[in-house]
């Protein structure tokens, strides 16, 4: 019996090494973002939100039923004061061209006149934009900042969340394949 335990003790350093190596390997994964916070919304129904329209934009606000029905509904939280949103905007314009995609915007803690100027200047990819002047809808979606983008299936379930701006590379390699997968 003593001999048996001794034999196992010999294996212990190798086992510790394998466990540590596995840990390091996971840490080295270039796809892994240590700052990413997992969203509890993914694979759950999107929050039911009703938001008024942005004054002067001539687009409807957000109603809960808009979050269902389209093959893919993209909900983008943005603001005119948000510089990364400016960088992201051409990608949203491209996403709006994708078949089966309904684009909804939530204008987070913004001023209506600045929001209108932002979309007039850069183009409008949205079918509807809700005005979230107090940031309550932002909290309902569990955002930490703008921009953040959620991808919903036809039943209104959140299938993917992207934090931070979507750049051209991310759109091509990550977002578009996912959008097509959700659309089925």
């Amino acid at each position: 019996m003593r001999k048996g335990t001794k034999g196992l003790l010999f294996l212990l350093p190798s086992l510790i090494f394998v466990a540590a190596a596995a840990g390091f390997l996971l840490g080295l994964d270039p796809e892994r973002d240590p700052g990413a916070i997992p969203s509890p919304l993914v694979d759950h129904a999107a929050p039911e939100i009703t938001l008024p329209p942005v004054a002067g934009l001539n687009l409807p606000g957000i109603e809960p039923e808009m979050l269902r029905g389209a093959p893919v509904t993209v909900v983008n939280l943005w603001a005119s004061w948000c510089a990364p949103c400016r960088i992201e905007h051409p990608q949203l314009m491209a996403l709006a061209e994708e078949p089966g995609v309904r684009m909804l915007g939530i204008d987070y803690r913004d001023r209506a006149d600045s929001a209108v100027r932002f979309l007039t200047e850069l183009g409008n990819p949205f079918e509807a934009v809700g005005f979230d002047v107090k940031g309550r809808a932002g909290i309902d979606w569990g955002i930490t900042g703008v921009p953040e983008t959620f991808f919903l299936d036809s039943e209104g379930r959140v299938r993917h969340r992207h934090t931070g701006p979507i750049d051209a590379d991310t759109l091509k390699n990550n977002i578009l394949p996912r959008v097509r997968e959700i659309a089925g």
Partner: protein
Amino acid sequence: MRLLLALAVCFVALQVPHSNQAWAIDDRERLSDPALEERARTLFKEVRCVVCQNQSIDDSEAQIAKDLRIIIREQIQEGKNEEQILGFLTARYGDYVLLEPPFRAGTLLLWLSPLIVLLAGGAIAWTTLRGRPKAEANAPLSAEEQARLDKLMGPDPK
């Protein structure tokens, strides 16, 4: 003596703002009922400011921390209990929003690892010590050892 007094005054003056109010708390946000305000403040200390990694919303000036404080105070005024309010927050931000992770299947390893390390260390110490022969401090020297000792000590100087 006067210097000492001045120092004491400075010391007290420095202590007062720290004592029971955080810098981040805006007076305008406070609830008028002190008991409800106390409950809100206790909750703030348990809730992470989601944009500042390791600060509670009680300590943070971030806009989102401010928004969360307002929501928590509103819900306390609506008569919601602590569990309901933390449930509201974790439904949106996950367990990440809690500064102390909850004890459940997924966090078992996190909570139990100190105990596991202690037990493993104890087991190693126990098997190592058990395998060691007991030291017999008072055993008499063998004839051979006595002879070697005598040689080392040299002849009796008497």
